[in-house]
């Protein structure tokens, strides 16, 4: 018998979530351990050791470790950047700081902070110029470049980003600068833009390249420590790191391209949503993840989460494929306030984890959405985090009464209910807009509820939205780690080259595609993927000539002949019509970039049938306020509800880290996977 287990670890701010998958049976187990912020690898190893004892497996039997890490993300958010330099084409040293110069705060008198990763004093122009056709218009002045690099060395800087105009068409000058830097500053961390993000648009490429350079020492240090601890523990299994594109990569590649980890937070959840979509045969889902401070919306369409070709962190563009997520600042910690004009607002200020809601008794004074739920009886103060953290529901009720109800002349329960309803209307509008901007209709989607605060709100959000089905997976707080168990190795490579989408374009791009396939195959080879498990997906960024934005269009296969091109052009016209309501079928579109996704498929576990715990599911009755009145409702123990059993709303279903509120006119059933599917009676 095969004893091997696959482990996924998701390191959050407070807890490190661990999922253990027994590969032979498909059974999975969850474990949680406190995060060790100063060195997350300590908590990681500790958690794995604890799990190996709890679930009786041997460290030697671990076949793979899927590792979600926020080490890169946190370095950016906390500005823990090393001193770095940037080399640009002379005359364009400020592109990084100028950005796209649009502001978010329309009436502000003080310009909002722009994330400038390299200060002007360390940005240096180099005499050189490649023109739009990729020809050398001004040769690289090597003598001057050497002097600049010497200057950088004298500043004691060893982290260097290089971004020259049109280097995605002709990387010769960037390559040469890299050589010169390596000659003059041994062991420097160098990131050149033609390797990190070879795409047109100089600001976005510079931003991505600078982030990559800055993260190189940060990620290397972490991986070195992780490596050392793994060796000590006798851990021999390959480690894979979760990337922003929903796939994983090897530590080796991540050391060179750490920027690919920077927006990886939502990847585990998206993989979980895709996996559940397949298991439940629900191809169209809106995944909503509500935690303490934010509400994330992502859309699964035909079984796959949408990707976008660019994201941003703290306003800095990251021009790499990533999952498309809409985030609003609405969570359990969102604070309610009543202003002098009689207006009741909820958020965007959040009490966060510290001081947290009033009920935590950690100094919070303003009632939050969590306090409102406590005041309405929807959360059991004795059973928060499975009873690990008792809450003071009376303090919540008092805060709602004093701060909201009495200044606005409301009853305490209508004030508390109002706080929740306003938060819900915000969330529903965020979902409506997410779908609307893609030309999709909420009525065609079921919602799937993630996050600690999801269970309390998602059915109510569905009502507000006009959707009639909500899915509640088990252990919604640790789904991100569970999702990582299902990830593949994914290496995205890209190259910008303006060509018409026709026969001529196909012949121009053919050698480029061969390069990309060689590059992708090389990365998969390095990741240990055998030839049979390699898979390639080809796509293009396309536009009508003169448009300033591109659409991503997938090719039918990773081959590039005239018939592929014909299919791609048809798809482009079609997609343009769906998204923008018009197209111009007589116009030959442009191709701006060619993209290749090199995938190394990892074996997927079988689906497992959920087995309920023995015992009576209905554990007590509770008085809750819902649907404009107080009701005595049954409280069910989630793990005891059998497959196919029905629970009618209004009701409460509890598990240790989350509470589901089932409103009146809703019926819940347990699916064989253990997911609860709730449907609203309509008509």
């Amino acid at each position, binding site marked *: 018998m095969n004893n091997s287990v696959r482990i996924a670890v998701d390191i959050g701010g407070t807890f490190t979530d661990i999922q253990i998958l027994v590969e032979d049976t498909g059974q999975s187990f969850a474990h949680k351990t406190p995060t060790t912020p100063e060195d997350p690898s300590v908590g990681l190893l500790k958690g794995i050791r604890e799990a190996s004892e709890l679930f009786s497996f041997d460290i030697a039997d671990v076949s793979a470790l899927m590792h979600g890490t926020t080490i890169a993300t946190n370095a950016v958010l906390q500005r823990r950047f090393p001193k770095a330099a940037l080399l640009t084409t002379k005359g364009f040293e400020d592109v990084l700081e100028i950005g796209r110069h649009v502001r978010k705060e329309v*009436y502000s008198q003080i310009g909002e902070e722009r994330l400038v990763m390299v200060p002007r*004093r360390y940005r240096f122009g180099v005499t050189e110029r490649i023109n739009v056709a990729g020809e050398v218009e001004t040769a690289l002045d090597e003598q001057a470049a050497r002097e600049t690099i010497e200057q950088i060395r004298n500043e004691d800087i060893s982290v260097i980003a290089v971004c020259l105009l049109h280097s995605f068409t002709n990387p010769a000058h960037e390559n040469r600068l890299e050589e010169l830097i390596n000659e003059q500053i041994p062991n420097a961390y160098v990131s050149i833009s033609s390797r990190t993000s070879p795409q047109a648009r100089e600001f976005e490429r510079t931003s991505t390249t600078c982030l990559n350079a800055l993260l190189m020492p940060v990620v290397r240090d972490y991986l070195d420590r992780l490596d050392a601890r793994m060796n000590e523990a006798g851990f021999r299994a390959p480690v894979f790191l979760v990337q922003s594109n929903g796939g994983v990569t090897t530590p080796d590649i991540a050391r060179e391209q750490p920027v690919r980890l920077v927006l990886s937070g939502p990847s585990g959840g998206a993989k979980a949503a895709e996996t559940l979509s397949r298991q439940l045969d629900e191809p169209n889902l809106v995944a909503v993840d509500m935690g303490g401070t934010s509400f994330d919306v992502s859309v699964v369409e035909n079984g796959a989460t949408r990707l976008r070709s660019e994201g941003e962190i703290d306003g800095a563009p990251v021009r790499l494929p990533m999952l498309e997520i809409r985030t609003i600042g609405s969570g359990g910690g969102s604070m309610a306030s009543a202003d002098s004009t009689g207006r*009741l607002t909820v958020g965007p200020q959040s009490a966060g984890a510290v001081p947290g809601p009033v009920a935590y008794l950690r100094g919070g004074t303003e009632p939050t959405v969590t306090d409102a739920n406590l005041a309405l009886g929807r959360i059991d103060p004795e059973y928060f985090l499975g009873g690990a953290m008792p809450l003071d529901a009376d303090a919540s009720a008092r805060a709602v009464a004093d701060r909201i109800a009495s200044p*606005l002349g409301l009853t305490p329960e209508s004030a508390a209910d*109002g706080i929740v309803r*306003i938060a819900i209307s915000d969330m529903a509008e965020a979902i409506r807009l997410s779908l609307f901007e893609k030309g999709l209709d909420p009525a065609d989607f079921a919602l799937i509820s993630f996050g600690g605060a999801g269970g309390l709100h998602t059915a109510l959000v569905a009502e507000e939205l006009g959707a009639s089905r909500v899915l509640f997976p088990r252990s919604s707080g640790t789904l991100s780690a569970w999702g990582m168990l299902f990830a593949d190795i994914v290496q995205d490579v890209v190259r910008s080259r303006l060509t018409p989408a026709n026969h001529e374009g196909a012949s121009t791009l053919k050698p480029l595609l061969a390069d990309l396939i060689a590059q992708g195959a090389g990365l998969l080879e390095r990741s240990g993927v055998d030839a049979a498990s390699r898979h390639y997906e080809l796509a293009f960024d396309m536009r009508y000539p003169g448009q300033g934005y591109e659409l991503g269009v997938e090719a039918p296969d990773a081959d590039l002949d005239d018939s592929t091109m014909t299919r791609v052009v048809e798809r482009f016209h079609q997609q343009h019509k769906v998204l923008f309501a018009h197209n111009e079928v007589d116009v030959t579109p442009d191709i701006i970039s060619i993209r290749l996704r090199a995938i190394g498929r990892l074996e997927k576990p079988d689906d497992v049938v959920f087995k309920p715990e023995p015992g009576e599911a209905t554990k007590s009755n509770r008085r809750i306020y819902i649907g404009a009145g107080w009701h005595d409702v049954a409280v069910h123990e989630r793990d005891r509800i059998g497959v196919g059993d029905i629970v009618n709303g209004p009701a409460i279903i509890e598990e240790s880290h989350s509470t589901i509120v089932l409103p009146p006119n809703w019926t819940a059933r347990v699916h064989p996977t253990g997911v609860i599917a709730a449907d609203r009676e309509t008509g």
Partner: protein
Amino acid sequence: MTLDPIQIEIIRNALVAAAEEMSITVWRTSRSSIVRENLDYSTAVFDADGQSTAQSARMPVHLNSMASCLEDILAHHIPVEDWQDGDIIITNDPYSGGQHLPDVMTFMPVYLGEERIAIAGILVHHLDVGGGAPGSFDPNATEIFQEGFRIPPLHLQRGGVFNKEVEMLFLRNTREPEKVGGDFLSQIASLEIGAANLRRVAKRYGAATLREASKQIQAQSEGAMRAAIASIPDGRYEFEDFVDNDGITETPIRIHVTLVVTGDTMEVDLGESAEQAAGPVNCTRNMTNSAVFCGIMMAIDDHIPANAGCYRPITIKSTPGTVVDAQSPAPVANRMAVGHRVVNTTMGAMAQALPGRVAAAYYGVSFVYAIGFEHDDGSRQVYFDIECGGWGAHPTADGASGFSCGFHNISNGPVEMIEIDYPVTFTEYAFANNTGGRGRKRGGLGLSRAFRIDSPKATFTANLDRFSNPPYGLDGGERGGPASLSITRADGSVEELKAKVRSLPVKSGDIVRLQTAGGGGYGNPSERTTEDREADLLDGYVTEARS
């Protein structure tokens, strides 16, 4: 009927979302780059009487412009009794509530049964509406008749029946009938989306509830605005600033504001501003209103939701026939020149009223330029761009460098994409050193943008300002650096150009260099900390010679 604050807030969310969905539809379905990339459009929801309730204004210049246009239409052109279910009213006429001819406004009343419950409105900047220059931006126009096609307020659709003939007439008068036609259809379709959403809200909450909630939403903003004004000391505050010239004559154009604060109300009098100009820099009153509100909202800095309630405590006065209250047939295409300056001047007056709380002048110009190429095969191409400059220093912070501020909010196009699409090669895009006004807090730097023409036959046009009258400093802070424009010919000779340039012939090898204005400084420069001074030198924002 009394509503609880929860119903009001939920309906507010729904109305804002209705405006936002119209906005997304315009973005999703329009054709031209001006709408898709410059996002030059806005959407709004009005109550049944035409009072603005919710907006998705992407640029302050659009704030309130639709509201006062609608007010004008209802008061002087098409009274509300003549509106019925299925109607769409259209206008682009600056002298009937509009701004300049490319901005086409459309309004659709929304009914639930017999009752009018709301009005949906959309403003879209159309690429070209005819007139003396491509883009309807003729810097030499002296009458509105040279600026393009004019649509007085009229029914584009009556009782659900679309008047195709109006559309035909309009499209026959544009240089870009396909793109403008596409944007026009998108504008109409988006109104229908907005109307459907508003009907859904009214059905769900009831017409009477919606009406009352709209009133309350406005009342809350009015209350917040009154509270903000009441915190300003009563008194009379004056300020003036100048536009360089109108492009026809060299005379500086004076903008003068007198602010009178009494309790929780404010009167803004622009009566002493210059007479209307011969060139197209004039503002109609609606445009001026919009600029005054923008200046006040920025100076108050209080995140008050913008709707009709905000405007009620404020009275604006002007003298007809002045540059801020232009009378037909004065040309208005480049109205942003005076518009930005009205924002600068209003903020200057607010700075007198709220010393230590208002920033010095931002660059105050939409630095607009265009190059028309005539290719060998006879085809034509227009490269159009807008730049920004430095922000005025705030008492607590240096001004931002090269960042959109004030009346507009624009994005720059990537240099590499411009070079892919047009025969130009950039030689510089950087901050212009030493252009930040000196002060205890330094003004933001302007931008330096230079490019070579790579085409044998082209013409260059520009609508710029702040060459001779750079942005003011406050409280001892100095002026920001002026804007400038030059051309280095292929033979090496250099020509300094004026701020307004019409169709200057240029050809391969000529290099155009634009420098935009820096922001004004705040406070005495001698009080700048050594640390800030050293940082400026290290980063080269200020060079040795000037520190």
